[in-house]
């Protein structure tokens, strides 16, 4: 995809015989608006260091806009900053700050409408309502941007990177902090989200709906208000992501609602209230994930079917799996459970008796949260042992018949 972009710029620059227009100190013009008016397709607008307060700027040409030094574009808490509607071009090296806040309009620092082949990279966004907002666009590359906000409440802030009805977008190595949703996708298909870092957002680190055939690789979602929630989508690939410390009574490492035919492998779920919460999801593969120190590692609702959990590590979770019915249509096999107390007489690395990951007390606490008070008391220990020996309340068929005796050696992920 990157080659495609490079080729695009190359072609543009050669054909148009590009010139460079300098804005700011020592340049031809003092205002960005004037610089853009002077430029024609393929030209470069170079913005020198300085503070620019020009309200909303409309960009309808395929031009390269580049910031030099501390080029800061300020919206005075009133305006949307750049509105782009172009078949190509790039925006880089700029700092955007203080866009307006509105409850009807989605004011953004960079709003891209019906465009293609744009490259937005190495920009900084400070206290913008929406950071980067894409609608009805394709082949957009968003790289190495930094978005931060210190909004106090969810309704005062928009999403960091917001895509609506796009395809073939690439988000790489962006950092989003303090927005409503870090990354928000709706009707976004065939896109790649990789090596992004979404931390401390008010609601979700990543949130998508109706976004089929997207790939999420090597991202980190840390300490977001409600973790990550993804819905109504098929064909998602999520690999090597980290879902860490999403803590609270309704926070999830990863919430899957109506997700189908997806592959969720090699991820790490660490210190979440619930590692994975899934309902109405079918035919997904969960392979070689690490679940560590979560409240519940997985909450598997009875509305899920044909999901496969294979070769995952479950360690130091308070409860491994919890469910809400006795019907089990999913397969759980060959996982490592640190609570497994069985033996391996055949010495093939597979436990000889099945492991039941649903504990009675986990189920009880789920039904009456106050019962958490008796957690780790002698009585609860006895109840749990009795239930595991002869399941009465927990589903009899929810079990791993081939539990691994040793944890899988899952390679450490990049940060």
């Amino acid at each position, binding site marked *: 995809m990157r080659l495609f972009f490079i080729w695009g710029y190359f072609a543009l620059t050669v054909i148009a015989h590009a010139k460079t227009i300098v804005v700011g100190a020592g340049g031809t013009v003092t205002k960005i608006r004037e610089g853009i008016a002077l430029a024609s397709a393929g030209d470069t607008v170079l913005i020198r260091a300085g503070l620019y307060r020009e309200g909303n700027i409309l960009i309808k040409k395929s031009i390269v806009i580049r910031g030099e030094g501390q080029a800061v574009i300020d919206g005075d808490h009133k305006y949307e900053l750049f509105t782009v509607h172009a078949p190509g071009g790039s925006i880089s090296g700029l700092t955007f700050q203080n866009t307006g806040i509105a409850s009807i309009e989605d004011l953004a620092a960079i709003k891209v409408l019906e465009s293609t082949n744009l490259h937005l990279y190495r920009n900084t966004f400070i206290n913008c309502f929406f950071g980067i907002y894409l609608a009805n666009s394709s082949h957009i590359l968003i790289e190495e941007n930094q978005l931060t906000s210190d909004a106090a409440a969810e309704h005062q802030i928009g999403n960091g990177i917001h895509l609506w009805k796009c395809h073939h977008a690439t988000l790489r190595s962006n950092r989003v902090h303090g927005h409503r949703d870090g990354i928000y996708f709706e009707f976004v298909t065939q896109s790649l989200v990789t090596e992004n870092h979404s931390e401390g957002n008010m609601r979700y680190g990543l949130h998508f709906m109706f976004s089929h055939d997207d790939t999420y690789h090597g991202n980190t979602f840390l300490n977001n208000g409600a973790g990550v929630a993804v819905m109504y989508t098929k064909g998602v690939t999520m690999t090597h992501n980290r879902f860490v410390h999403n803590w609270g009574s309704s926070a999830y490492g990863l919430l899957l609602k109506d997700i189908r035919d997806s592959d969720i492998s090699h991820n790490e779920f660490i210190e979440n209230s619930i590692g994975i919460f899934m309902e109405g999801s079918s035919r997904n593969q969960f392979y070689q994930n690490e679940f560590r120190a979560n409240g519940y590692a997985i909450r598997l609702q009875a509305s899920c079917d044909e999901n496969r959990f294979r070769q995952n590590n479950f360690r130091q979770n308070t409860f491994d799996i919890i469910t809400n019915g006795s019907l089990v249509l999913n397969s759980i096999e060959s996982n490592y459970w640190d609570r497994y107390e069985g033996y391996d007489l055949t010495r093939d690395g597979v436990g000889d008796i099945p492991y039941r990951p649903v504990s009675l007390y986990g189920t009880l606490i789920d039904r009456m949260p106050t019962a958490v008070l008796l957690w*780790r008391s002698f009585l609860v220990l006895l109840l749990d042992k009795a239930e595991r020996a002869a399941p009465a309340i927990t589903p009899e068929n929810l079990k791993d018949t081939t539990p691994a005796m040793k944890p899988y050696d899952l390679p450490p992920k990049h940060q």
Partner: protein
Amino acid sequence: MSRLLKYVFYDLLRDRFILAYTLFLWVLTSVLFQFDADAGKVILSLMNVVLLVVPLVSIVFSTIHYFNSYEFMELMLVQPIPRKVVFLSQYVGVASSLATAFGVGVGLPVMLFGGGAAGVALLLSGLLLTLVFVSLAFLAAVLTPDKARAIGLALLFWIYFALIYDGLLLWVVYTFSDYPLEKITLVLIAMNPVDLARIILLLQLDISALMGYTGAFYQQFFGSILGLVFSAGVLLIWIALPLFAAYRLFAVKDL
């Protein structure tokens, strides 16, 4: 009193059972620390010892000791020594020797291997539980005429606090699960020193279990200064109240 206390204390320190108890705790703690590098997990295992074994040993040993030193007490009371002095020196002697055993057996290894804040919480709750159950043992001893029945009553106390009470609590929580129970359960928890110690330790160790509203409420309460004062105060009442009742009975008892 200090002289009498010294006799009781030194006598107990040489007691084979106390030595064995110390050794047991020491070996157990050290082995656990050597087995597992994760201090949090070790403390979690030790929590079961503190919540079950320490109260059991404290209450049974103290009850037996009371009856074994019955003649010694009679002898002392023949002298012009007030009953209060004899009684208190017995209590302080037994309590301090058991507390020393716990402090040496668990405390030293925990400090040695580095237990952190959770380790300190474990030690404090272990020590307080020791004192509580020695108090209860003295109450059981003065309530009954002979050793066998006293041990029976002591064991009943232990089973009640370790097991039966939790069953009742679970029943209450289950029956009234439609109501907001946070504040009521706080009171109910305070009615059982073992549960109170367990909650304090859980807050240090196993935060992931305490999700949800109840967990958050407890975390907020016990995390505050008020919570600290409350839990320490309640445990002190649990030491003082049975001891006081036992003393009142002992003071008027026909020995």
